[in-house]
């Protein structure tokens, strides 16, 4: 809940001295409320006013950074419950649990696999974010495994109850801001001290949301700022989802600072499908970090794709630069397909064109990121617009022919487009999947 301009005004000196560059304190306050200016511009604010305003200006869910500058991941700072209201800001971090009971060889194999987890989808690189080392053996073994994992250059989480082992690990990780998982009512003090000393963040875990709130408050009192809330994932799913939702609502709707932290969900070892499905639920419903065990490529690809979907800005669909894209060794006889500049449309068409192995020009028209049918309905994919793009693209100089293939869904515009552009219009398939056979049959 942000303060209004008037609320802020009450906290200012009300002297209208103009040092802030505004004619009055009220004008300054109104601008502050809009976040158009920073509080520091007024040299006369009282300490008390500062504290009140700063607390208010903090995001309701704290942004937490794991890792060092070279390899970091940021989670939190979310502002909504439903992505259509604004967007989800910091993609949920996805990581894998490495148990120290595995042999060194198994661990190395796992790490090799994890290194491969990056995929390109609709022009974006999607990848996993962190590794968690779980202690089940001696402290020495834990450190041994930590050293094996160090080479991988990803932020780390340390899953352990052993404060001596944690202390040793944190010493090695100085400056790398790892996450400690997790403090409960028993070890809260010791873990808070460790985290503070070594600049780590600390997750708190408890059986109920009330206890979580109390624990987080205690950690904060100890002076540690970087806190995560661990949800109980062994509960019935509806309970876990209820908890995840309540934590987000407390932060956003009640401005409950004790629960204003990102949530971490650690998934116990299950069948890979089940881990994936569980992770999918947590991803949709507010987890900031998900740790899982499965290293199946298909599961990782699916989960990262879901994250890409859920965290896409609904007001700003992924777009590509609208221009001409020659695919393969195009010649003056190569066909021309027209589509929108909505990433998904373009990359789907691109995939099929590549699969056809027929060198083809794809003309991407600026539809402000709308798909073919949406853009057509919104008059962003019109004969005028397409004719314009044809001219601007410079394709007319490159080709001997004047045949333009349009998506089957907009066949109705053929006549008008033919008139406007002077090109001959060929109606292509409705679905991109039909492109390869269509292109092959052209010749």
């Amino acid at each position, binding site marked *: 809940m942000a303060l209004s301009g008037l609320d802020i005004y009450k906290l200012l000196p009300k002297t209208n001295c103009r040092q802030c560059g505004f004619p009055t304190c009220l004008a300054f306050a109104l601008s502050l409320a809009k976040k158009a200016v920073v509080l520091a511009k007024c040299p006369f604010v009282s300490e008390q006013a500062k504290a009140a305003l700063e607390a208010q200006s903090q995001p309701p869910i704290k942004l937490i950074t794991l890792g060092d500058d070279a390899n970091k991941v940021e989670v939190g700072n979310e502002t909504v419950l439903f992505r259509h209201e604004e967007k989800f800001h910091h993609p949920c971090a996805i990581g894998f649990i490495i148990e120290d009971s595995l042999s060194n060889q198994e661990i190395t194999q796992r790490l090799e696999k994890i290194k491969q987890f990056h995929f390109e989808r609709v022009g974006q690189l999607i990848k996993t974010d962190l590794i968690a080392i779980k202690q089940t053996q001696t402290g020495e073994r834990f450190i041994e495994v930590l050293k094996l994992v160090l080479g991988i250059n990803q932020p780390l989480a340390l899953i352990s109850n052993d404060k001596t082992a944690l202390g040793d690990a944190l010493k090695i990780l100085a400056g790398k801001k790892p996450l400690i998982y997790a403090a409960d009512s028993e070890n809260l003090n010791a873990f808070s001290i460790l985290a503070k000393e070594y600049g780590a963040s600390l997750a708190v875990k408890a059986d109920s*949301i009330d206890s979580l709130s109390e624990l987080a408050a205690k950690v904060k009192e100890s002076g540690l700022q970087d806190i995560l809330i661990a949800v109980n994932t062994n509960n*019935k799913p509806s309970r876990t989802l209820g908890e995840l939702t309540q934590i987000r609502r407390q932060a956003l709707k009640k401005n409950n600072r004790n629960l204003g932290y990102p949530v971490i969900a650690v998934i116990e070892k299950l069948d890979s499908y089940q881990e994936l499905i569980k992770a999918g639920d947590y991803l949709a419903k507010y987890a900031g970090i998900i740790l899982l065990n499965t290293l199946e490529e298909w599961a990782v690809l699916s989960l990262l794709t879901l994250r890409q*979907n859920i965290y896409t800005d*609904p007001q700003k669909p992924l777009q590509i630069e609208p221009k001409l894209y020659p695919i393969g060794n195009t010649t003056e006889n190569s066909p021309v397909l027209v589509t929108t500049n909505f990433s998904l449309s373009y990359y789907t068409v691109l*995939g099929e064109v590549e699969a056809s192995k027929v060198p083809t020009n794809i003309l991407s028209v600026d539809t402000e990121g709308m798909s073919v049918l949406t853009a057509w309905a919104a008059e962003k994919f019109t004969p005028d617009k397409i004719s314009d793009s044809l001219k601007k693209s410079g394709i007319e100089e490159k080709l001997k022919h004047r045949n333009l293939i349009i998506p089957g869904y907009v066949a109705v515009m053929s006549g008008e487009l033919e008139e406007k552009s002077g090109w001959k219009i060929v109606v292509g398939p409705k679905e991109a999947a039909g492109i390869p056979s269509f292109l092959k049959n052209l010749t």
Partner: protein
Amino acid sequence: MALDLVKEKWSNAVAVVTIGALKDEGGTRSSVVRCGGEEGLPFLFAEGKTPHRPVIAMEVLDVEPDDWPQSLTSAIGPAIKNPVEWAVKCEKDYKADLICLRLAGAHPDAQNRPAEQLTKVVKDILQATTIPLILIGCGEDKRDNEILPLCSQAAKGERLLIGETVQANYKTLTASALADGHSIIAQSPIDINIAKQLNILISDMSMSIERIVINPTVGALGYGLEYAYSIMERARLAALSGDKMLGMPFICFVGYEAWRAKEAKASETEFPTWGKQLERGIAWEALTATTFLQAGADILVMRHPKAVELVRKHIDELMKE
């Protein structure tokens, strides 16, 4: 000190749609499916009841599918050549809640099958199975307007769920469904305003809201899933806040979409870093389905038996209070 929990209070519930009619109701089913009725957001039981669990309909085509990947066809086996055997398998072996028969063979560009053959498949499947039936046309408006009324009549009293109506073509099918006692699917192109508009148009023909199911037109994981996801969230929030014209259950054609995705079909040789092909396809369909459950899906229309099993088990877990 106990936290002051933020609980939402809703003023409206989603309508309950019943599919299938028992013998003493004028049909021949041995069970019926009720869907919808939610009084709150998905699986937040503390804020409102979910009287009916989400259900899974398995898709059966009247002709052998020619564009289904092998990981899908081989899972179903030889029955895929015979819609009646296929439907029986969905009921008996895969424990589907409903059958969803898609009359793909009716399409003029496909086999353009004569109406008698189509009505016969509908009747034969009703005869061979005991669970409720969803019936979908071929998607070509003209042809659907010709054949669906005949199929509707042939199944009179069975309380099918028939689809699909769209804004530009809803009258013929709505009239048939009204006359024969069926419910209908109202399809809108990922657009909450059109969804509402169509529901109003259909209601204006005196179809009650307990006989309409919304198809928000979902996209698969990686292929626009997030658009329908948010449209469903918005529509459901509006419904719970009192908008009755958006307060119908959702049907999501998950299998149709998921198995078109490259990731569900491509071989491991083609994309070695994507992992095993079979599991990838199943995961693609299952994760698409479970994600829509989080947005309020009531009926999931699915294809792969293993994906169906995974999602059913997940629904079992989700429904535990």
